[in-house]
């Protein structure tokens, strides 16, 4: 089994992280390999548990009623095990029927073997076979959309928020902008891990021999340097900086300083954010 190279694809596949071409070939392999199928199933369950790691955010009370009201308006599609094979062989039913897959290996019917790759994806993704075509089209659209991800400021902030949010259950965020359309920044303050992330946008790179410096200010005290950073040619920066032990940050702000940074701010602070106490 250790020389079964396909198994290396199981973890990224379970996380939905295989690149398109690898995913397609691995799914084809899955349709014929019980070893990889079992591996994927278990790792899917591992990945599935990650759902419970998201920081707790309470849903609005109205959501429950909305879901039940929506449900009352639509009857669920009910299929019984005995008509499952009919559902899988009748295209007309596929659109409204729900795909149901035998779970035991012995129950693997020929149709399923042929369609296992699709079936597997459908089970964990969309349960409607009729939606599969839409989904494929959507995925193609997504592929091109994703190519553009890197160029959007949102993506940087969102990806960072993903990292930061998951770092601790009590990360605070503040989004600030200067006067006018730019620059702006989103801060992620993780007091427990003693670090702060700044995702800056539309901030021109500091001039030659200059740098940006981030300051943390504790109420009634002098600013403390959190570190320096600079933006790229597109005006973005994504920087994680440690917070000195014992510093209780009430305000963060950025200044333009000589390379290497200053011991105290020498220019007017901007992108200032205020923080709630712990």
């Amino acid at each position, binding site marked *: 089994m250790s020389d079964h190279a396909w198994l290396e694809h199981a973890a990224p596949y379970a996380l939905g992280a295989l690149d398109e071409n690898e995913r397609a070939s691995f799914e084809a392999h899955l349709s014929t390999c019980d070893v990889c199928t079992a591996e994927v199933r278990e790792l899917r369950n591992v990945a599935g548990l990650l759902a419970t790691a*998201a920081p707790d955010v309470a849903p609005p009370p109205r959501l429950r009623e909305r879901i039940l009201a929506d449900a009352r308006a639509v009857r669920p599609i009910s299929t019984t095990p005995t008509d499952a094979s009919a559902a899988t062989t009748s295209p007309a039913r596929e659109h409204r029927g729900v795909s149901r897959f035998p779970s035991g290996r012995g129950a693997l019917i020929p149709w399923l073997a042929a369609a296992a790759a699709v079936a597997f994806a459908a*089970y964990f993704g969309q349960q409607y076979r009729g939606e599969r075509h839409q989904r494929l089209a959507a995925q193609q659209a997504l592929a091109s959309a994703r190519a553009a991800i890197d160029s959007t400021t949102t993506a940087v902030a969102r990806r960072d928020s993903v990292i930061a949010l998951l770092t601790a259950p009590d990360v605070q965020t503040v989004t600030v902008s200067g006067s006018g359309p730019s620059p702006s920044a989103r801060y992620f303050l993780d007091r427990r891990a003693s670090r702060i992330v700044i995702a800056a946008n539309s901030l021109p790179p500091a001039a030659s021999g200059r740098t940006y410096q981030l300051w943390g200010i504790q109420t009634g005290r002098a600013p403390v340097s959190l570190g320096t950073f600079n933006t790229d040619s597109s005006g973005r920066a994504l920087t994680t900086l440690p917070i000195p032990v014992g510093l209780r940050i009430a305000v963060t702000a950025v200044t333009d300083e000589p390379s290497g940074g200053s011991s105290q701010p020498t220019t007017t602070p901007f992108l200032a954010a205020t923080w709630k106490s712990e």
Partner: protein
Amino acid sequence: MSIHPAGVQSREAALVAQVADGDERALGELYDRCGGMAFSLAFAIVGEHADAEEVVADAFAQIWRSASGFDPARGSVVAWLGTIVRTRALDLVRSRKRRARVLEEAAVVTDAGETLVLAPTAESPDRGAEVTEASALVRKSLAELPPPQRRVIELAYFGGLSQSEISALLSEPLGTVKTRMRAGMEKLRQALRPLLEAGA
């Protein structure tokens, strides 16, 4: 597999079976048990309450329509629900990419200076004690991963990024990202074994 003791899992699986039969009360109870998790997951991905609400409402509508497609032998209710929520949340994020910049700039103005505290809510009654316990183990296991391994897993699961995208984002070689992802998932599998063994 189970989110925890077999009894809890079977209760959730039983609810899904009742939902498949059109039992609205079962849908309500399923929401009571899993709605908090679903919303938290959606929020972690989409980053705003209104969108997270849409995602969860859509996810439960899908469950209502297609609960009979759930097969407990293939995974837990939580894994199934989590996948539905995550898929919809990521689709929403991607579909809004074009609008995103505009929205982001609007948000910058309206949010200016405003502090959003993402502190854990008081343990919501939505969550059964067992789910909470499982969640604690998952968070602990994730926290104990070497940060580089943890980061690639989080970017894949919550960020919806492929290995190549993660490689580009972190400026790490693709091979390194692949190795870290595999190693991290293997560690998680070992650490979460107690949760995985309860079912299937």
